[in-house]
C-alpha cells in the first residue's frame, strides 16, 4: 500500500537544483489538490438530533401520542365538547419523547470528532525551491516534486524523500509510537517505506540537523493522510451495551406491540367501540414502555464514568463504560503502557558476573555489589563518557523525574550514576574533559579524554563506550576486581555469553572501556585532535557491560495477573523488535513463566520448528513480516490456540487486522495505544483506550477512553467497574420491567372483566418517570455481590443483559404479584366506598356512561358520573400507591441477584434509601398536593390504604429470599437455571 517509486540508489541533490516551475506547480496543484487532509463528512447535527427522537422506545411513544390525537379527533367529530384528556396525554407523551431525546443527544454530542487533531498537526509554512529560488510558502501549496528544505524544530510539511541530510534526526513517535529519534539520510535502508531511512513523513518533527528532500506524497495521500482516512473509514462498532439495550428494547417493544394488537382485536371482538379500542391500545403501549429507563441507564453509566475518572480512566463515550467490563481480549501497546517509556539501566556485567539493577520507577534499591574496584572504574566511565545533562533549575525535582537533555540511553546512564554516586556534574567538573568524539552510527562508539581528579596523577584518562563488539575489538586487557588482566579466550567467551544473555533479554547492551594515557607520551600540555585521532584507540582495557531497557511499570505484572484471573487474554501488539517485545512480555507475565513458544519447544526438544505440535505451545511471538504472510484463517487459528501472544514489528494496518481477527472470535476487544498509527485500531476496537500523557491527540480522539496516568493497571480498575455496572444494569432493568406488568394487567382486566379502570395513564407516567427513577439509579451504586474479577468475561452473544430468566421472573412472577397487590388495594378502596368487587364486574359500560347519574352501588346508593369519576381517581391513586409500595420491596430485592439481602447489607448502599424516600415523598406530594389538579387524576388517599399492599410487598421480599436461597443451595439445578437472571 505504501509503495515507493524509485530505485534503491541514493538520489543526490543536483547542484543548482532549480525545482519545479510555477506553471508546473499550478498544473500539479490543479491535478492533486492542495496539501491538506480532507475532513470527513459529518452528519448534520439536526439529523443526529432527530435520530435520537425516533430510536428505541421513542417510536412507540410517538405512536401512542398520535393515537391520542386520533382518539381525540374521533371523539371531537362526534361531540364538540369532547374531553381534552387525550390531547393532554398526547402532549405529555411528546414532551417525554423530546426530553429523553434531548437528554440522549446531549450525551451523544459530547463525543468529539476525530479529524480535528489531524488538522492541528498540519505545519504552517515550508521552505521550497521553485523556479531556481528558495522561498517560503504555506505548506498547503506543496505539490509532488517540490524540493523542500527542513531544519531542526520543523514539522515535515509532506511525505518527502531525503536528497541530502546533515545530521538530520526525526521524531516519528506520532506515527509509529516509538519515541527514539531516528536519523535520516539519503540511503535506502529497507524496502518498507516506513522503515527506510530516506523518507520523512508528513507531520513528524525534525529534531536536529537539516535536510533537503523531494515531496513524494501530499495531502490525503501521505501516510498520515491514509491513516486518517483509514481511521475515519473504520466504522465504529456498536458498543456491546448498545447492542444489549437494543436487544432489550426489541423484547419490550415486541411484547408491547403484540399485546397491544392482540387486545385491540379482542376489544373489537368484544364489541367495544373503535375509539375505546384505540384508547386501550395507548394504555397498553404506555404501560409496557419503561419511559424512565433510558434516562436511568444513561445516568448510571455516567455515574460509573465519574467513578472511573476518579481512578484515572476518562470515559469519552458513555457506553464504553460497560464495554470495558465485557472485554475478553486486551491488545496492549508496549511502550508507555506496559513499560515506563524511558530507558533504564537493567543489568551490569563486570568482574565476570551479571548484576541486576533496580528498574522500578524510583530506583531506590540498588543492591548490586558496589565495593569492587572494577565498579569504581566503570562508574567513572559511565559518568564521564556521557554528554547528557539535566535541564537547568530542577533542584527540587526527584532525580527520576528530572528532564534530561540528551538521548534516551545517555539519560538513563546519567540518572543511574546520579542515583548511585550523587552529583555527576560536579564529578565531571573535577575531571575536565579535554577532547571528545560523539557517538555516530559509523563509529558506533563514543569517546572522551579527561584530566583526572587526582592532582598528583598527571595522566589523561581516555574513556569509551559503544556497541560491545566494537569496544571489545579495541581492547587487549580486561579489568577483574580492579586489576587489568590480559584478555584471553576464556574471558572473551565469558564476555560473549554475557553479551548474548543480556541481548536475549531484549536489552540494549553497551560496552565500556578506558585507558590511562602514559604521562610521558601525553603530557598535560598535549593537544588532542579528534579529527586526526592523535591518541590510541586500541589496546584499551575492557571494564564492563551495562544493559538498558525500557522497563515494565511495576504495577503491570499484577494487573496482567488480574486480567488472567478475570479470563481476559492480554495480547501485546508493538512496533518494537520481537526480542525486546518478548522479553517485556515475559517480565510482565503476558507470556507466563512456564509457557513456551514453538521455537522454544523446538530448541528444547532439538527438533526442527516444523515438527513441533503447535497446540502444545501456549505462547507465540509473531512479527509483522510473518503476519503479512498469514491468511485470515491462519490468524484465527493463531488467536484460538495460543493464549499468550505477542505481535512485534506491526504496522497500523496489521494492528487493525489483529483487532478484526480477535473480533471474529466473538471477543470484545480493548485496544490501548498512543500514536497516530494506533488510531485506526483504536477506532475499530470495541473499546479504544488512549494514553493520556504520551498519547497523540489523534489517538485520544479515536479512543473511547483515555487513561490519564498511562497505567495499564487502571484498565483493570476500569474492567471491574464495567463488570459491576453490567450487573447493576441488570438489576435496574429487572426493577424497571417488573412494574410494567403491574401497569399492564389493569388494562387487560379492564378490557376483559369490564371493571372501572384501575390505573390511569398519567399515574403510569408518574410511576415510570417519577417514583421509580431515583431508586433505579440508586441501584447503580450497588456493590458487587462477589469477586467479579474472578469470573470469565461475559459472552457477547450468550450472556445477555436482559435474558429470558430476567424477563420471566420480572414479568410473570414479581410483576404478577405486584398486579395482584395493586388490585387488592383497588378493590379495597372501591369496597369501602360502596362498590364491592362483584358489583364492579362488567360495570364499565354503565360506569363510563356520562348521562347515567344515578348508578347504584352495592348498598343501593346512587352515584353521579362525577362522583364515580372521583372514586375512579381514588382507585388510580390506591393502585399507584400499591405499586409504589411494592416497588420499594422490589428495589430492595434487586440489590442482590444471588446473595441474601442481609449478606449484602441493607444499609451499605445509602442511595437506595434516598430512592425509597423519594418514592414515598413523590407519592405523598401527588396524592395530597396535586390531588386538586384534575388532569393528573390523583386524589387524597386515606392513610390506612397506603398500607394495603404492604403484605404483598413482604411476600415479594420473602419469595425473592427463597429464590436466592434455593439458587445458593442447588447451584446448577433446574431452579438455578430458570430463576437466576
Amino acid at each position, binding site marked *: 500500500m505504501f509503495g515507493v517509486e524509485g530505485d534503491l540508489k541514493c538520489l543526490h541533490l543536483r547542484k543548482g537544483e532549480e525545482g519545479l516551475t510555477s506553471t508546473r506547480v499550478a498544473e500539479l496543484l490543479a491535478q492533486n489538490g492542495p496539501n491538506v487532509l480532507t475532513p470527513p463528512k459529518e452528519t448534520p447535527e439536526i439529523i443526529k438530533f432527530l435520530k435520537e427522537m425516533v430510536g428505541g422506545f421513542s417510536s412507540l411513544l410517538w405512536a401512542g401520542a398520535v393515537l391520542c390525537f386520533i382518539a381525540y379527533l374521533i371523539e371531537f367529530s362526534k361531540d364538540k365538547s369532547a374531553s381534552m384528556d387525550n390531547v393532554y396525554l398526547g402532549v405529555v407523551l411528546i414532551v417525554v419523547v423530546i426530553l429523553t431525546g434531548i437528554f440522549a443527544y446531549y450525551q451523544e454530542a459530547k463525543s468529539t470528532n476525530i479529524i480535528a487533531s489531524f488538522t492541528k498537526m498540519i505545519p504552517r509554512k515550508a521552505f521550497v525551491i521553485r523556479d531556481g529560488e528558495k522561498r517560503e510558502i504555506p505548506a498547503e501549496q506543496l505539490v509532488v516534486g517540490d524540493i523542500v528544505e527542513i531544519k531542526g524544530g520543523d514539522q515535515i510539511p509532506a511525505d518527502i524523500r531525503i536528497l541530502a541530510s546533515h545530521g538530520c534526526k526525526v521524531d516519528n513517535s506520532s506515527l509509529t509510537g516509538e519515541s527514539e529519534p531516528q536519523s535520516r539520510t539519503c540511503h535506502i535502508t529497507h524496502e518498507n517505506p516506513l522503515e527506510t531511512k530516506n523518507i520523512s513523513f508528513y507531520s513528524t518533527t525534525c529534531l536536529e540537523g537539516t535536510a533537503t528532500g523531494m515531496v513524494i506524497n501530499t495531502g490525503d495521500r501521505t501516510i498520515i493522510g491514509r491513516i486518517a482516512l483509514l481511521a475515519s473509514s473504520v466504522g465504529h462498532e456498536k458498543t456491546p451495551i448498545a447492542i444489549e439495550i437494543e436487544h432489550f428494547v426489541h423484547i419490550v417493544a415486541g411484547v408491547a406491540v403484540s399485546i397491544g394488537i392482540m387486545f385491540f382485536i379482542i376489544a373489537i371482538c368484544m364489541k367495544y367501540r373503535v375509539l375505546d379500542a384505540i384508547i386501550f391500545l395507548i394504555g397498553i403501549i404506555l404501560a409496557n414502555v419503561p419511559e424512565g429507563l433510558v434516562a436511568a441507564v444513561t445516568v448510571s453509566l455516567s455515574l460509573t464514568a465519574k467513578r472511573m475518572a476518579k481512578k484515572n480512566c476518562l470515559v469519552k463515550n458513555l457506553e464504553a463504560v460497560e464495554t470495558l467490563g465485557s472485554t475478553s481480549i486486551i491488545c496492549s501497546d508496549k511502550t508507555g503502557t506496559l513499560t515506563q517509556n524511558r530507558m533504564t539501566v537493567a543489568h551490569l556485567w563486570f568482574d565476570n558476573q551479571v548484576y541486576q539493577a533496580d528498574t522500578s520507577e524510583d530506583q531506590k534499591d540498588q543492591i548490586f555489589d558496589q565495593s569492587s574496584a572494577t565498579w569504581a572504574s566503570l562508574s567513572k566511565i559511565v559518568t564521564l563518557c556521557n554528554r547528557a545533562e539535566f535541564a537547568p533549575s530542577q533542584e527540587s525535582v526527584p532525580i527520576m523525574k528530572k528532564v534530561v537533555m540528551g538521548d534516551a540511553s545517555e539519560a538513563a546512564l546519567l540518572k543511574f550514576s546520579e542515583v548511585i554516586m550523587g552529583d555527576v556534574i560536579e564529578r565531571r567538573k573535577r575531571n575536565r574533559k579535554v577532547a571528545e568524539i560523539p557517538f555516530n552510527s559509523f563509529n558506533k562508539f563514543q569517546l572522551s579524554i579527561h584530566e583526572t581528579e587526582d592532582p598528583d596523577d598527571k595522566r589523561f584518562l581516555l574513556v569509551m563506550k559503544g556497541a560491545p563488539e566494537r569496544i571489545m575489538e579495541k581492547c587487549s586487557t580486561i579489568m577483574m576486581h580492579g586489576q587489568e588482566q590480559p584478555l584471553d579466550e576464556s574471558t572473551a567467551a565469558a564476555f560473549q555469553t554475557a553479551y548474548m544473555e543480556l541481548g536475549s533479554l531484549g536489552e540494549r547492551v553497551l560496552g565500556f572501556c578506558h585507558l590511562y594515557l602514559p604521562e610521558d607520551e601525553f603530557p598535560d600540555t598535549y593537544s588532542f585532535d579528534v579529527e586526526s585521532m592523535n591518541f590510541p584507540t586500541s589496546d584499551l582495557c575492557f571494564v564492563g557491560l551495562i544493559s538498558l531497557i525500557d522497563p515494565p511499570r511495576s504495577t503491570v505484572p499484577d494487573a496482567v495477573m488480574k486480567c488472567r484471573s478475570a479470563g481476559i487474554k492480554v495480547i501485546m501488539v508493538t512496533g518494537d523488535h520481537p526480542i525486546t517485545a518478548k522479553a517485556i512480555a515475559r517480565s510482565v507475565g503476558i507470556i507466563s513463566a512456564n509457557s513456551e513458544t514453538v521455537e522454544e519447544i523446538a530448541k528444547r526438544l532439538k527438533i526442527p520448528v516444523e515438527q513441533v505440535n503447535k497446540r502444545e505451545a501456549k505462547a507465540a511471538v509473531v512479527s509483522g513480516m510473518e503476519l503479512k504472510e498469514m491468511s485470515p484463517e491462519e490468524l484465527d487459528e493463531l488467536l484460538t490456540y495460543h493464549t499468550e501472544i505477542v505481535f512485534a514489528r506491526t504496522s497500523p494496518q496489521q494492528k487493525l487486522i489483529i483487532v478484526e481477527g480477535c473480533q471474529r472470535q466473538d471477543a470484545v476487544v480493548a485496544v490501548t495505544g498512543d500514536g497516530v498509527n494506533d488510531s485506526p485500531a483504536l477506532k475499530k476496537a470495541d473499546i479504544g483506550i488512549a494514553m493520556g500523557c504520551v498519547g497523540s491527540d489523534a489517538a485520544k480522539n479515536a479512543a473511547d477512553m483515555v487513561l490519564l496516568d498511562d497505567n495499564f493497571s487502571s484498565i483493570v480498575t476500569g474492567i471491574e467497574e464495567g463488570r459491576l455496572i453490567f450487573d447493576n444494569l441488570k438489576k435496574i432493568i429487572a426493577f424497571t420491567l417488573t412494574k410494567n406488568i403491574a401497569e399492564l394487567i389493569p388494562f387487560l382486566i379492564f378490557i376483559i372483566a369490564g371493571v372501572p379502570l384501575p390505573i390511569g395513564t398519567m399515574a403510569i407516567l408518574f410511576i415510570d418517570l417519577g417514583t421509580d427513577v431515583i431508586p433505579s439509579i440508586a441501584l447503580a451504586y450497588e456493590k458487587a455481590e462477589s469477586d467479579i474479577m474472578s469470573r470469565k468475561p461475559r459472552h457477547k452473544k450468550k450472556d445477555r443483559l436482559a435474558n429470558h430468566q430476567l424477563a420471566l421472573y420480572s414479568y410473570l412472577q414479581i410483576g404478577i404479584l405486584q398486579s395482584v397487590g395493586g388490585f387488592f388495594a383497588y378493590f379495597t378502596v372501591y369496597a369501602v366506598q360502596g362498590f364491592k368487587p362483584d358489583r364492579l364486574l362488567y360495570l364499565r359500560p354503565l360506569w363510563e356512561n356520562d348521562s347515567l347519574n344515578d348508578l*347504584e352501588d352495592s348498598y343501593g346508593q346512587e352515584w353521579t358520573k*362525577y362522583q364515580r369519576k372521583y372514586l375512579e381517581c381514588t382507585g388510580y391513586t390506591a393502585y399507584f400507591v400499591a405499586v409504589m409500595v411494592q416497588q420499594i420491596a422490589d428495589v430492595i430485592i434487586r440489590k442482590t441477584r444471588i446473595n441474601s439481602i442481609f449478606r449484602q447489607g441493607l444499609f451499605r448502599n445509602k442511595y437506595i434509601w434516598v430512592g425509597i424516600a423519594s418514592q414515598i415523598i413523590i407519592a405523598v406530594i401527588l396524592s395530597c398536593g396535586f390531588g386538586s389538579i384534575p388532569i393528573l387524576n390523583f386524589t387524597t388517599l386515606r392513610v390506612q390504604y397506603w398500607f394495603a399492599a404492604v403484605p404483598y410487598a413482604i411476600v415479594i421480599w420473602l419469595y425473592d429470599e427463597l429464590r436466592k436461597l434455593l439458587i445458593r443451595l442447588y447451584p446448577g439445578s433446574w431452579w438455578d437455571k430458570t430463576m437466576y437472571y
Partner: protein
Amino acid sequence: MVNEKEKTGGQVLEEWKEFVWNPRTHEFMGRTGTSWAFILLFYLVFYGFLTALFTLTMWVMLQTVSDHIPTYQDQLATPGLMIRPKTENLEVLVNLSDTKSWNQHVQILDKFLEPYNDSVQAQKNDVCRPGHYYEQPDNGVLNYPKRACQFNRTQLGDCSGLSDPTHYGYSTGQPCVFIKMNRVINFYAGANQSMNVTCAGKRNEDAKNLGDFTMFPANGNIDLMYFPYYGKKFHVNYTQPLVAVKFMNVTPNVEVNVECRINAVNIATNDERDKFAGRVAFKLRIIKKT
C-alpha cells in the same frame, strides 16, 4: 455488528423452525418436554399460591366491610338529581307525528312507576307522618328489615299516567318528566326543614320557550318522611320520592334546556365540577308539524 451479514429470509425461517421444534435436542420452543413440565408445574403452583393469597386478603378485607352501610360516604355528601325517562344524553324528544319516538319513553315510565301503584304501596309500606323523618334506629340490636313510607302514584296527579289517554302528556306535546334524588344511606335531606324541587329554563330564551309547567306533588315538595334511607339490604321496599313536572306549552321545534334543582338547606347545588350535584339539566324538544 456492522459487518454481520444480512440473514436471508430462508435462514430466518429455518432458525424459527428449529426454535419451534429442534429434532436434535427434542426441544420445543427452546425447552425439552421435562423442562416444559417443570415450568408449567412451577407456574401452576406459583399462581395457585397467588390466588390463595389474593383470596385470603380479599376475604379479610371484606370482613371489615359492613353489609348495611359502606365504610365511607364522603363521596356522596351531595346527592345528585336525575330524571325519568332516562334517555341518551338526557334529551327528551317528542315527535308528535311519530308515535314511536315517545312510545319508548312511555314504556319506560310505565315500568318505572309500577312499584308506585297505590295497591302495591298500601300492601308493602307504611303511612307515615309527613314533615318528619321516619327514623328506625337500631338501638344496639339490628332492627331490620326497615319499613318504608308510602309514595302513591296518585300523588303524581296528571303525571300519574293512570287512566291517562295522553300517555303522561307525550301524545299531546305536554310531557311529564320525573325528577328523583339519588339515594344516599343515612342522609337526612333538608336537615329537618321542608324542601322542594324547582325547574327553570337554563338561559333567558329557554325560559321563554319553556312556557308553563305544573309540578306534582304541589310545589315540587319532597317530604322528609322518605328519609333517611337505610340501604338496599335493610330498606327493602324503600320507595324513592318523585317530583313530576308537566310542561304545558313548550315552544315546539326548538331545543329547550331545562334545569331542575332541589332547594334544601343541606344540599349544595353549585358544585362547579359535578353538574348533577343537587340538580339535573336536560333538554326538551317537541317536534310538531305546523
